[in-house]
């Protein structure tokens, strides 16, 4: 179970991306996070595994307070949170198998990972996951040789290789065609059911969100303006979330992505 409690994120520039956001996600629930660009979706999802450092508030994963952890323990906590990215974010020059096995990095030491000596169980599990997402024949291919849909499947397999207790999914279908988008969404929902995984899907396609998720959270300007079943999402709610024509929000979108990226880069700089 994931609990987000009064989470606030203020960037150095003074922009408030999140304003005291609170919600809980029980086991096995798939939540769609919708909202206009710049509403703070991307910041929210990254504050949960602290790729972006939250300013205030708490994140609890099964009673573990993630926000308070020092660097070493944060890494151990991150192993339990799988993340799937918008542009797949595979390491393109590595093979598919290495990308899946990289989900185990938190569990093996430096030299074993350097020499690609993963435990037999890890390798077996990686093959099983590749079979599950339908890519077992592509294990030895380089990631950049795959199509978009296939790459996203590898991304899913990598996240599952972590044996996660929570999935964070950032715009999984943004770079895919409509048909592949549905396949990927279906796969994610099936897997969450099989493993009783809670998941937060950050998604801009409202129709897709309604179709595949069990609960929708609407975010606007860093605040929750809707939280309920997909059926309750009607015209008036959508207008409340997206507004009639919200140009300022669109401008802020670019800014927010920018902030999130810079913040992550800066923090990563401190880590290595």
């Amino acid at each position, binding site marked *: 179970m994931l609990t987000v409690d009064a989470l606030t994120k203020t960037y150095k520039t003074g922009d408030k991306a999140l304003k005291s956001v609170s919600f809980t996600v029980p086991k096995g629930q798939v939540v769609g996070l919708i909202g206009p660009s710049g509403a703070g979706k991307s910041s929210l999802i990254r504050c949960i595994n602290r790729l972006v450092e939250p300013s205030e508030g708490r994140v609890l994963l099964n009673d573990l307070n993630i926000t308070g952890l020092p660097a070493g323990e944060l890494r151990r906590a991150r192993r339990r949170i799988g993340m799937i990215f918008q542009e797949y974010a595979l390491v393109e020059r590595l*093979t598919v198998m290495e990308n899946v096995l990289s989900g185990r990095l938190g569990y093996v030491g430096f030299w074993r990972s350097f020499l690609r000596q993963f435990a037999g*169980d890890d*390798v077996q599990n990686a093959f*099983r996951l590749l*079979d*599950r997402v339908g890519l077992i024949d592509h294990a030895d291919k380089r990631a950049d040789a795959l199509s978009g849909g296939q790459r996203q499947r590898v991304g899913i397999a990598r996240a599952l290789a972590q044996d996660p207790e929570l999935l964070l999914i950032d715009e999984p279908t943004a770079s895919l065609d409509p048909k592949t988008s549905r396949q990927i969404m279906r796969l994610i929902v099936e897997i969450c059911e099989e493993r009783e995984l809670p998941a937060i899907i950050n998604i801009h396609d409202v129709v897709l969100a309604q179709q595949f998720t069990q609960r929708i959270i609407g975010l606007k300007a860093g605040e929750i303006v809707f939280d309920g079943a997909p059926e309750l999402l009607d015209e008036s709610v959508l207008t409340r979330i997206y507004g009639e024509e919200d140009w300022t929000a669109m401008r802020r979108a670019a800014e927010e992505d920018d902030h999130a990226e810079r913040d992550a880069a800066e923090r990563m700089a401190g880590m290595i």
Partner: protein
Amino acid sequence: MSATAKTYPRRWRRPATMIPDPRWRYGIYAAILIYLVLAISTVDVNWARVWDGLDRGGRFVMGFLTPDFTSRWKDISNGMVESLTMTVTATVAGVLISVPIGIGAARNIAPMPVYYACRGLIALSRSLQEIIIAILLVAMFGFGPFAGFLTLTFATIGFLAKLLAEDIEDIDETQAEAIRATGASWWQLVNYAVQPQVMPRLIGLTLYRFDINFRESAVIGIVGAGGIGATLNTAIDRYEYDSAGAILLIIIAVVMFAEYSSSYIRKWVQ
């Protein structure tokens, strides 16, 4: 779950992408290893000499950290003036000469005989190291910065003319086409179609070459072509590491200054 009955391999090895054939792969590894053993074994080191040298090495590091600018200041300043004046004049002269040669060496605008002549000159300039050119020119023109000036000018031609020619060959043909279509002459073509496209890069390359020329000017003094190199050579010969450290620090400072100002000028030009 349909996959329950299936078993999956417990081992996976990264496929070798560069050299798929294992015999070739191990053959190449072995060859590299043998080469390294042979190469390292022929480096005969006089360890006693090295051991003695550690002390001098320590003194050099100390000299670098506590440089002595004053006791040889007259030599240093003379050498710096020679180096800098040599660099400025050689860069200007080099650019003036390399522009026509670069245009002549561009396949798309120069006639064939001119092209081959210019390419030949460029190849000659590039194939010889600055220090060797300096040795020959010192033998011809006598010691002093004039030989150094000629050396740097000659080296600049090879560098700039080649890159300029490549740039001209890479220009956007449609723009040249458009100018040609207006009935422009060859000179007008160069002025209107080629120059605007290559000018910013030419300025950038000139600044870069200025930087290189200064660094080279510190070297050719070793063989008598003037500049700070001669001063440095003397300082090292006399084991005056604190003066040598001072000279090296000045060189580093000038190079850093040249780099910063060139990035500034480049921004300003564009």
